[in-house]
């Protein structure tokens, strides 16, 4: 979050972090628990005003807020941006923190298919000096899928293994979705390598520790 904030500030924006914000309700929504999702989402909506764009450092949260929240609550839509799409349109300069670094980028399914954002994060990483290593099947889900990860843990982990194996030759695997990040990183911690980091961190601090 601090990395996302610093990137936005570097791009010349003033960042407001509403302290009353909570989860957007997606975990419950995707598991079918609409009433629970609605309860949480209502608080979310109270915390965010509509007079400035909402930027989300998560492809799936951005999808929830942009696509499903208005339908779930019957509320006005937000102007909501996924972080990399917002930074790409801002066209700010990015310091070359990833010069000489080879990075693999993992598309979050929501970001790729619901928001149609695939090029922006890759372009940002390249602008930060990174050399991109293509994943063998960039369209494949990493296996997180919210409650899917604990309902079908064996399949979920096997999908993560395939994704992680594809990033073998990169210095790190970068993703713009905290769900994918948590799952892939947790699996990599069990099996060793590669490192998995958030796009905001890669851009703000560089992918190498």
């Amino acid at each position, binding site marked *: 979050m601090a990395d996302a904030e610093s990137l936005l500030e570097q791009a010349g924006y003033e960042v407001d972090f509403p302290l009353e914000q909570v989860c957007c309700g997606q975990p419950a929504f995707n598991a*079918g628990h609409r009433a629970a999702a609605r309860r949480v989402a209502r608080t979310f909506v109270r915390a965010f005003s509509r007079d400035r764009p909402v930027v989300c450092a998560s492809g799936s949260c951005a999808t929830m807020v942009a696509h499903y929240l208005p339908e779930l609550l019957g509320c006005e839509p937000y102007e909501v941006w996924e972080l990399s799409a917002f930074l790409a349109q801002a066209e700010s300069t990015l310091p070359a923190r990833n010069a000489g670094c080879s990075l693999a980028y993992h598309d979050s399914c929501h970001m790729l298919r619901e928001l149609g954002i695939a090029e922006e994060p890759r372009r940002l990483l390249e602008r930060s000096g990174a050399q991109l290593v293509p994943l063998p099947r960039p369209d494949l889900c990493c296996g997180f899928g919210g409650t899917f990860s604990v309902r079908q843990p064996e399949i979920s982990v096997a999908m993560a293994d395939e994704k992680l194996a594809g990033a073998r030759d990169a210095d790190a695997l970068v993703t713009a979705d905290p769900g994918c990040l948590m799952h892939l990183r947790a699996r990599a911690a069990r099996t060793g390598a590669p490192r998995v980091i958030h796009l905001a961190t890669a851009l703000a601090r560089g992918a190498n520790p």
Partner: protein
Amino acid sequence: MTELAQVEERFRRVAQASLANPHSQEAADAATQRMLEGRTTAWADLPDVETLRERAHEIRMRTISDLDRHLADFTAAFEARGGKVHFARTAEEANEYIVDVCRRVGAQLVAKSKSMASEEIRVNEALEAAGIRPVECDLGEYILQLAQEHPIHIILPAIEKTAADVAELFSAVEGAPVSPELEELAAAARRQLRKVFLSADVGLTGANFAVSKTGSLCLVTNEGNGGLVTSLPNVHIALLGMERLVPTLDDLAVLLQLLPRSATGQKLTSYTRIFTGPRRAGEVDGPEELHVVILDNGRSNLRGGRYEEMLACIRCGACLNVCPVYRKAGGGAYGPVYSGPMAAVLVPLLVGLERAPALPHASSLCGACTVACPVKIPLHELLLELRKDLVEERVASARERLGFTLWSLAWSRPSLYRASTFLARLASRLGGRFGPGRTWTLGRELPVLARRRFRDLR
């Protein structure tokens, strides 16, 4: 109908076995990759695949929303050409009619072409129980029948069988060794099946589509067995899912541009047969009797509601080939007949959610299926809707419902939300010992949380 049902834990159990079998994994990877590449190339060669998909969706939905009229039109046209129509509400009714026809004509041998609907109603078992021998004439299905197994892919039913497996099965039939060379195997299959074609009393097929205006049935195959099964025996029975109608031959042409391309990557299958009525005076081939059994078997449950779009499915298998969960879990996990995302949506709707409660959750909701569907069924959105129904109809466990309610009570209050993210730091060491945390840590470490929360830095 209950043949499709499965208990909660079955999916995970079958998937575990598939994951532990490197041969299953390789077979699924190779087959889905090949089919996926085929479809992608075939779609790219179309001038405007998006417009074509929209037209196909429109045709399917227009027909389905007025299905009674189309069924009546089809029936009238089919019977005017001398065919007989039987409407079967259930699998049992369909089997009963098929067995009756076979008995009436004194049939001993039934030659079958590939049909998922026939798998759905388990007609082979019904025929065998009546002392009639059904023989599958599609190569993949024939292999499975010899092995006494069920299809694990809609289009490629026997992807896990190796040449050696097939040689063993064929050798048993011939009573002499058949070598596992492809030419040898093809020759053996031809030898064995040719006898069936020539001596079968009844041909039993599915139907990919039926045209309501002309009363025609359409059957697409690649091995030619469909042609032999529909023209050599004196009696032909076609089993048609009640939703597989299209209004006109022009509409059929739109769907035929998409079905083979989406299924196998072909512009057309080797054989596309459209037949209208039994043999007429002066014609040299074709059956003397032509029956169509129109099958409901739960399909009516989908009509007019939120799930009606699922009736647009043309059984091409494109959603299986893109599905990462299907690739890992294998087709058997979804049940004995249908598999992949289309099964995860369709089966609970056919048999009732409480009889297939794991299927709507057998997906990471990645949405690849929706993008691949040639008739634009929003498969992953329908899965979301089914999950909602699981909760609202209280099929989801009380524990799960209570968990989410408590979660929402806490996280809808900013103070408790903050407290919970703080507590998460304290509790993370215990997290791996109970409930979902324990399942999570079967193959993963627990997340390492930042030392300080972003909100505390401000």
